[in-house]
Each structure stands twice: as C-alpha cells, then as structure tokens.
C-alpha cells in the first residue's frame, strides 16, 4: 500500500487510541474537568455485592377483586335505577352471574350494561332471565397493566425512601419486577420492606358469633378467620383469632400520610391520615357501623380491633399493636409509599456479600494477569519483534473494550471478566494466523514486504469467518442470557470486534510503518 493510505491508517489508529483512552479515563480517575465525558464502567452485583430480586405480583388476586367490586357496582346501579334483580354475584373465575324476575327487567339491565358498563361483556345466557357476565379482554389487560405499573411505582417509592444508592428497578414480562440493590447487604430487611403488601383494610368483627364458635363449627359464608398478634404478660407472642366479615369496609387507598407516633404508654404506633375522599368514606362507614368493632387488618394480620363509639370525621386514625420501633418505622414507610396493588412473592433472589465480590474481582484479575502474561511472553519469544507487535495489539484491546463498555453503559460482571480474558486469549489467534502465513510466504521466497501483504490479505477472511461464529453465539447469548451471562456475552462480542481491529488493522499499520521507506531485507518473525 502506498504512503498516503498508510498515513491515513495511522491517523485512524491514533484517533481510536485517543478516544478510547479518553472514554476509559473516568472509570479510573475522579477529578476530571467538567466537560469530560463521565460515563463509567459499572460493576455488576456479583462484583460489587448487593441484592438481585425478582418479585412476582399475583395479578389473579387483583382481577378477582375487581370482578367482585364490579358485581357490587352493578348491584348498586341496578338498585338506583329500580331494576329488580333476584341476585347479582361473582361466580367462578371472573364471572358475574345475574338473575332477573322477568324478561323486561333483564332487557332494562342489558340496556344499563350497554350504557354504563362497557368493561363488562355478556359471556353466556345459561337459562331464561339469567346472564353470566365477565370482564372484557381490554378491561383485563388494563387492570393488569395498571396493577403492574402501580406495583413498580410503589416499590420504587419504597426503595427511594429506604435510601439505597443507584437502585435499578424495572418491569419484566407482565407480572414481574426486577430489583437490583447494589451495596445492600441486609436482604431480610430489603425483602420485608419491598414485599410487604401494606394492604390496609378495615373490616367488621362479627357480633353474633365468637371466633371459637367458628373454629368448631366452621367459618360461615362471607366471613373469614384472621389472626392478630398480641404480647402476653410473660412476654411471649400469642395469636388471637378474629371472626371478620370478608368484604372490607374500606382500604388504605385514600391514605395520604403515615408516621410513627406515641400511644398512651409511650408505645410506638402509626398515625394515618386520609385524603378528603377517604375521610368522607371513613366518616360514612364509622357512622353506619357505630357500636360494632372494626378490625384494622394489615396484610392479613389484625393489628387492633377497637370499638366504633361514634362517627369519626377528620380522616385520622391510629394503628396500634405490638410493634417494635423499627417495625413501626418500616410500616409507616410502606404505608406512605402506598400499598402494593397485589400480593407479591420473591421468585428469585441472588445476594452477594461485599467480601465475596471483592474476592471475585481479585481472583478474576489474578487469573487474567497470569493467563495473558503467559500469552504475552509466549508471543514475544516465539515471534520476537512481530510477537511484540501482537502483544501491543492485544493490550490495545483493553482501552477499546472498556471504552465501549463505558459508553454503552454496559455492566462488568464476573463472567464478563472471564469473557474479557477469554477474548483476549483468542485475540492473538488472528495474529498467529497472519504470522504463520507470513512465515510461509517468506519461506516460499517472497520479500518481507510482499510476504506481509500476502499474509494479512489472505488471512483476513479466515480470521473474519472464524470470529463470525463466535460472534453469532455471543449475540444469541446476549439475547437470551440474564445478568452475569449477559455480561459475558457483551465482553465476548465487543472483544471479538475489537480484537479483529487490533489484530488486522492496527498490527498491519505497525508492520507497514516498519517496512516503509527502507528496503527491508529481513523481518523478525
């Protein structure tokens, strides 16, 4: 190749070196000028330590509740329009069954459905004057989407209030949330805080029967047994049963504030405040059921069941119970952040302690230094000057790969470090192929210059093709891999591309530069 093209290629190499160094610098140096790009190579949880959680929301529960509520709304709407219905009740799954005394009532009801209940559709007519309704597909989808989004928001709020640096919270599929909490090392507390539904419900305690009666004779329809936790005199915990009406009077939906306050005996309790709508509802409910006991149920646990002595206005209430100081505080956070719209369970948890992460980095680096050190020495001994060029090409990969990782915000994981080391081990393959070809060409009597040209030229497609298959698998792996494995796929594919550049382009520039000008008689290879 002529001198002009060589100058141009030297320029490219210099630019790549300059840019990649500039982009890698923020990862290692802190006090850079403000205009300098600030993106860093971030470390994965397996290196930094932290918690990776996958939570699954039980959307079915939400759909069931929605169906029950819609049955209730339908019943109320029919009553308002004075349409007589024998029964309107939630049936199997998401079905709502309605029965009417005659055809005209049913016709009126159908008109009402058509006008006001667009989210319900008639599933079938099992008999005369009977309808079975269900939620429309669109409604089901909306409920699911809304629930998932609300769950995500709630968890985000809670994590923010908890104060974790750089949390990563994102949805996955239709009902899952992936939560990454770097640096966090108390999974117990994290799971408790994130996973607490914080579903606050106010339910009526049955006046006619005792829970003991229900335990013996079975729980009556529309009722349920729930338990409360009380501290007995000797300090032990006892479970106290309550017989409650299943349908809750109201929930914590309209709650605007929750904070820790002190009770009569200075015990911690949580004071809650409702918004105006919640306050009105609370007033109505307490007015309607004066004289009853109202259980305050949080996540299916009865905290207290005070008597309703009078109608309560102002939208304030207190949750007392056997709290510890920490429990009261976490509960207030959870309530303030809002209830999770659905119960969640931990589907996957991976926690890496900070010491293990540090060990992993150290061992990864040690393996890399030893492995690559061997390769570097071997190349220099085996190919001498040319081997040193190959070594330079290999080292050149570091700033390039790290710069790409930093720029695209990729995460470096332990498998990622393995991938990096592996790809650098493979990187000299390309140089070996080229050099062996050059040796062959020299043996067949070509001048060094011609041999270099032929060597690089002929080896190019072989190197390209052999790297392509590894690249294909790396890309598929990226597509289907998760977390750490993705890190491996990223460094492997970036490394392959980068090593092709250094082994074929950069090395060639060095060779051409060395051989240009003078008439080289010998080549150290």
């Amino acid at each position: 190749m002529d001198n002009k093209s060589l100058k141009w290629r030297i320029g490219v190499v210099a630019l790549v070196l300059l840019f990649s160094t500039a982009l890698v610098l923020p990862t290692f140096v802190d006090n850079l000028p403000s205009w300098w790009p600030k993106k860093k190579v971030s470390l994965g949880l397996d290196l930094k330590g932290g918690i990776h959680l996958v939570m699954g929301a039980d959307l079915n529960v939400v759909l069931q509740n929605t169906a029950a509520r819609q049955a209730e709304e339908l019943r109320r709407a029919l009553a308002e329009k004075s349409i007589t219905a024998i029964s309107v009740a939630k049936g199997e799954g998401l079905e709502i069954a309605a029965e009417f005394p005659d055809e005209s009532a049913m016709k009126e009801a159908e008109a009402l459905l058509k006008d006001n209940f667009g989210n319900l559709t008639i599933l079938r007519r099992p008999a005369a004057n009977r309808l079975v309704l269900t939620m429309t597909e669109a409604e089901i989808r909306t409920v699911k989407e809304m629930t998932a989004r609300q769950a995500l928001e709630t968890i985000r709020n809670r994590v923010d209030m908890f104060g974790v640096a750089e949390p990563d919270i994102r949805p996955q599929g239709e009902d899952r949330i992936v939560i990454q909490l770097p640096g966090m090392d108390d999974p117990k507390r994290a799971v408790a805080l994130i996973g607490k539904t914080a579903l606050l419900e106010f339910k009526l305690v049955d006046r006619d029967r005792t829970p003991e009666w229900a335990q013996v004779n079975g729980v009556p329809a529309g009722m349920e047994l729930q338990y409360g936790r009380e501290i007995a005199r000797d300090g032990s915990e006892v479970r106290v049963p309550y017989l409650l009406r299943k349908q809750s009077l109201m929930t914590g939906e309209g709650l605007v504030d929750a904070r820790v306050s002190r009770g009569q005996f200075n015990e911690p309790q949580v004071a809650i405040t409702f918004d105006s709508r919640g306050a009105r509802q609370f007033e109505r409910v307490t007015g309607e059921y004066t004289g009853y006991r109202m259980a305050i149920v949080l996540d299916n646990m009865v905290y207290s069941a005070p008597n309703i002595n009078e109608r309560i206005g102002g939208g304030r209430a207190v949750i007392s119970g056997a709290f510890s100081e920490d429990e009261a505080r976490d509960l207030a956070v959870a309530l303030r952040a809002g209830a999770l719209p659905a119960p969640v369970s931990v589907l996957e948890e991976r926690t890496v302690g900070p010491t293990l992460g540090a060990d992993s980095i150290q061992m990864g680096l040690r393996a890399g230094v030893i492995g690559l050190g061997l390769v570097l020495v071997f190349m220099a001994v085996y190919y001498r000057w040319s081997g040193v060029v190959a070594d330079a090409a290999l080292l050149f990969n570091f700033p390039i790969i790290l710069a790409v990782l930093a720029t695209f915000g990729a995460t470096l994981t332990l498998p990622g470090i393995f991938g990096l080391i592996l790809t650098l081990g493979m990187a000299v393959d390309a140089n070996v192929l080229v050099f062996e070809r050059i040796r062959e060409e020299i043996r067949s009597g070509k001048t060094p210059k011609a041999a270099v040209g032929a060597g690089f030229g002929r080896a190019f497609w072989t190197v390209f093709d052999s790297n392509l298959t590894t690249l294909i698998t790396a890309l598929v792996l990226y597509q289907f891999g998760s977390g750490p494995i993705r890190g491996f796929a990223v460094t492997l594919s970036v490394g392959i591309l980068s090593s092709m550049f250094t082994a074929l382009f950069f090395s060639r520039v060095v060779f051409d530069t060395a051989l240009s000008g003078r008439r080289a008689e010998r080549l150290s290879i």
Partner: protein
Amino acid sequence: MSFELIKPGININFMGKRYIFLGLSVAVMCICLGAIAFKGLTMGIDFAGGLLIQARFTEQVTPDNIRQALDEAGLPTPSVQGFGEDGDNEYLINLQGDEELESDVARESTLNQRVTDSLMSFFGEDKVEIRRVEMVGPRVGQDLRQKAMSALYYSILMILIYISGRFEHKWGTSAVLVGALLGALYVASLLGISMVYLIILAVVVTVILCYTLKFEYALGAILALLHDVIITVGVFALLDKEITLSFVAAILTIAGYSLNDTIIIYDRIREHVQKSRKGDYAEIINRSVNETLSRTVLTSGSTLMVVLALYLFGGAVNQDFALALLIGIGVGTWSSIFVSAPALLFWSRPPKADGTNGAPAASAA
C-alpha cells in the same frame, strides 16, 4: 531463525491412521452419550430451582453441624459441600424443594431467611458470614430453562445455516438447504414439539441435507461440532458437575470456537484442491492438515493457556465454567485435526480427482 514448535516440513500421516483416531473419538462419544442417557445430567439451581447459601464460619464447623442447625429449626436436610480451600470453613448449603421457595413475603419470611436465622442462632450471629445467596423459584427456573434452550436452539440453528453457506460456494443450493431446514423446523414447531427435540431435529435434518446435497465440508464441520459439544456435556455428566446458566454459555462459546480450526484446515484443503486438480484426495488432506498444524496448535494453545489460568486461579465461583471451556476447546482442537479432516474422506470423492472414487487409506508422500 525463528522459533518453530512445529517444523515447516512436517509430515505426519494423519490420514493413514485415521481409523484409529476416529475410532477413539467414536468410543469417547459413545461413553459420553451413555453417561448423558443413563447417568443423567445434574441440574443446578438455575434450572432445577432451589436455594444455595454460601456461608463462611469463623470457627471449625463440619457439614454435620450445619445439618443439625437446620434440623433443629425444623427445616429440610440440605446437601452441604465444602467450598474453596480446606481451612476456609466455607460451605455451600443447598436446598431443593419447590413449594417452599416462592413465599408470599407479606405472610411469612422466605426460606433463605429461615435458613440464615437457623445458622445464626445455632452458631452465634457473629460466627457466620453469609457470602452468597441464590434462590431460584420454580417459575424462574422454568423460565431460565426455556431461555437456555432457546439460546442453544437459535445459536445452533444459526451456526448450521452459516456452515451450510460458508464452506460450499454454492449459494443457490445452500439457500435450498436452509429453506428446507427452516421449513421442517416450522412444521415441527407447529406440532408443539419440545425445544430439545427441535434442536436434535435441526441437527439431524441438516446432516441429512448436507449428505444428500454432497456438502461434505459442511457435514465434516457439523460432525466436529457435535463431537465437541457431546463430549463436553458428557464429561460433565460423568463428573456429576451441575448444569448451570454459565455452563450453557460455555457450550455456546465452544460451539462458536470449535469451528475456528476447522475453517483454517478446510480453507487450506480447498486451496490445494483448486490448485492441483490431480493428486490423491487423502494426500491433499493430509498435506493441508500438516501445513496448518502449527497454527492449529498455536491458536488453541494460546487460548488454552488463558482458560487454564482461569480454571486454576479464577476462583471457585466460576471454576466449572472454566472447566467446560477447557474441555471443549481441548476437544475442539483434537476434533478439527482428527475428526473434521478425515470425515471428508468418508463421504466425499475428491472433487474432480481423476477416477479415484472415494478414498483408499492413503499414505502421504
């Protein structure tokens, strides 16, 4: 002069003894397939679901102590395994059991909290350090299995397609092959066949198509690839090593890398075939293998050096990953010399080589 591990004029008679080498490979493959079929693969918690806790103790502790701690808390009996070096007092505590895993956190503490609590109360809170927890519930386990199968399927499919086009410069026929392959797979997937069988089907269909279309290079490459993957998986079955996500990553990497040496040798064979229209095919193949021997050994050697360092010094967490790479890349080097090159002789005639049909076991000149 320069260093040369393998002298330029080297001429080892690989093809003459090819039945011995191939026989060895076939025997090892049979053992490995047998191990996979009868011994089975041990699934790690990524795929089987389960709970894995890596705990380090400040005092001398035996696996029996740990089992006792869990037993006293009414938890199921775990499998306990030493981790790292002997004096570390570090253990992997492994619990499998699906129904306990996905706990509704609002109601009860998770299984791993209960295990952790039991260790803390048994040994004392400051005596235990929980270094790593991996809990995979059944739903996520199933997802990960699905994803791993998809990854294997698509990468193998893409490699097969690539191979069919790469080695034969008959793009029209290659397109027919790819079309037929994708068609067969589409029909099979409509029938709801599971991913495992789809992968096997893809391989079988490609092998048959390559055979009938006389794509001998593609066929040889595929056989070498199968050889490498089967042996790596088989060794893991024999050693009772766990199949994890990172093992799948290693298998895919091996599949990708396995072709490298094969490509180099095949390219050289093709070069010679095009140059000399005459000559014994076996001799041409043998010469090509010998000429490329030094680069085959050097490229694989440098990569193996690095993988060996990862295996020895990379830490225990990903040691199996390094082991898989070590086996796969080692076997891959063997297979490109002793499987893929002689495989050409089995199925094909020397392209336009005058008269000599097939291949008499030839000795190289």
